[in-house]
């Protein structure tokens, strides 16, 4: 286990290095002098001079990169031009909101996607299978911001059951929090449920045709035991890996969902920063997202390692 962990850690170091170069390189896409762009419409010479010194713009590119990476290592992702707050603090403030949304969305995705995949695989060729595949195509083809708008139209405007927007912290009022989060979580979970359903179906079809499943049936075990204990357990490895990979989809989707439902999370932070031309915040958000994605992939690999004894040999 330790050797595997070290090996995996060794592979993510160069990836992280390239990620940091990529994100730092984004700044080079800004036309002209970055300090002038960052200084906004006022073009205050004092601000431009301050930004020049702060961003080390008079130094060569590799040196500037070294300064930036050095800051990242000490938890300094720069400062928001708009709010003058450290990017780390802004990210830390918004992260729990998106984390809650992501957890709820993933719970919904797992609750729909895995059972639908199992039913589809077990009843292959049946109406259940057909319905599950239609659901998957629907999930993959529906833009989640449109689904969000349609849900607001139905549940908020027409029925008046749920609030269309407005975030309440779960520590203030859990009920109001869940009422505000259930629609965005469903919207976000819907697309991932479709992907999970297809993969679960595919993995289960493979597993259910394996010899050990035939043996389990021949032993006279009941169908639920065969499917869930012998089938699903072995099909779990690719599903765990996929769950982590879908984290990226979750964050991309969160950007749009938070915009539709006005949730003050990570996604809204990046969009607001883009329009405020607050580029260090954009860089900080992308860096945190990419790093989280890499770490989650590592955790998924380790989870697969634990779940699947064959990988340990």
């Amino acid at each position: 286990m330790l050797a595997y962990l070290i090996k995996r850690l060794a592979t993510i170091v160069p990836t992280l290095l390239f990620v940091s170069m990529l994100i730092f390189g984004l700044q080079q896409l800004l036309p002209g002098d970055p300090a002038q762009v960052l200084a906004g419409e006022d073009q205050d010479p004092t601000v431009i001079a301050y930004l020049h010194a702060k961003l080390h713009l008079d130094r060569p590119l590799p040196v500037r990169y070294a300064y930036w990476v050095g800051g990242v290592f000490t938890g300094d992702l720069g400062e928001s031009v708009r709010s003058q707050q450290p990017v780390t603090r802004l990210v830390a403030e918004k992260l729990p909101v998106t984390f809650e949304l992501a957890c709820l969305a993933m719970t919904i995705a797992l609750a729909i996607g895995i059972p639908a995949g199992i039913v589809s695989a077990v009843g292959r060729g049946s109406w259940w299978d057909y319905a599950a595949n239609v659901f998957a195509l629907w999930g993959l083809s529906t833009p989640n911001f449109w689904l969000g708008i349609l849900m607001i139209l139905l549940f908020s405007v027409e029925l008046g059951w749920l609030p269309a927007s407005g975030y309440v912290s779960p520590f203030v009022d859990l009920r109001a929090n869940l009422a505000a989060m259930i629609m965005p979580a469903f919207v976000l979970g819907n697309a991932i449920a479709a992907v999970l359903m297809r993969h679960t179906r595919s993995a289960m079809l493979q597993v259910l045709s394996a010899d050990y499943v035939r043996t389990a049936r021949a032993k006279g075990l009941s169908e639920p035991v065969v499917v869930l204990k012998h089938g699903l357990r072995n099909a779990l490895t690719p599903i765990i890996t996929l769950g982590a990979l879908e984290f990226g989809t979750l964050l991309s989707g969160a950007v749009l969902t938070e915009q539709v439902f006005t949730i003050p999370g990570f996604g809204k932070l990046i969009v607001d920063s883009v329009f405020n031309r607050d580029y260090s915040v954009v860089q900080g958000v992308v860096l945190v997202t990419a790093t989280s994605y890499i770490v989650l992939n590592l955790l998924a690999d380790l989870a697969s390692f634990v779940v699947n004894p064959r990988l340990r040999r």
Partner: protein
Amino acid sequence: MTTIVDEGHARSAAPSRLPAHAGPWRRAWRRLRHRKGALVGLVVVLLFVIVALCAPWIAPFDPIETSWSAIRQAPDATHWFGTDEIGRDVLSRVIWGTRASLLAGVVSVTISLSLGIPIGILAGWMSATAGGIVDGLISRLVDAFLACPFLILAIALAAFLGPSLTNAMIAIGVSATPVFVRLTRAQVIDVKVEDYVEAARAVGNPPWRIALRHVLPNIAAPLIVQSTLAIAAAVIAEASLSFLGLGQQPPAPSWGSMLNTAKDFIDSAPWMAIWPGLSIFLLVLSFNLLGDGLRDALDPRQR
């Protein structure tokens, strides 16, 4: 951009009864013809293409012409899809918006293919030479790109490049490139040890000729499948960027920006949200159906 390999479907496909002399493309077309979903997808995509090309003639009104006497008018005989917050005809805007969506889908994927295929071929070809340094570098760079969620990377790129449809297409194209690099690389590694490539090398063909004449045609099938699915993802990505204000700029029509405006009038003018969203859904669904069908018909791994 998630590629889904649905083995169950592939296995359930009817066994092909095709003459042995039929070429691979002809056989693929015959297989595709038997998949109703793919054919429906193809027909709907073609319909959208016709709508996009004929927009100036079939749109009943000017898509940017405002009418203060017809603000947020419900669908009726004059305005079939209703009007928006400044009296523009929603149907005409949906028809013209088809251009932005299709253009974004096709141009973005063309950018991804033009970057992804040469880099992927280089990585795959060099995987066993020079200690695999070139391949290692390209692969780590691809990993870095893939670590940034597709839309977030596209948003960041579009933000730094500046909001416009052209920049949105560049951002989407660049963000989707790593998938094509990885796919091409894997295919090249498989194909380059085949006898016909060895034979081409043995008779003295230069590497670029082997890549273009012998490798590329043999890795085209999975690339075509991935391209179709990538167009679907790019259409959604363009709509998403336009929805956020980073794609097509007003007053030019785009389905995403129409939805962005519509969300503010959802209680008084729901038709403003229904039609552009439905158009995105139909176009993306059609490309997904076509991509699924093409995968079963073309991708050798799925047969």
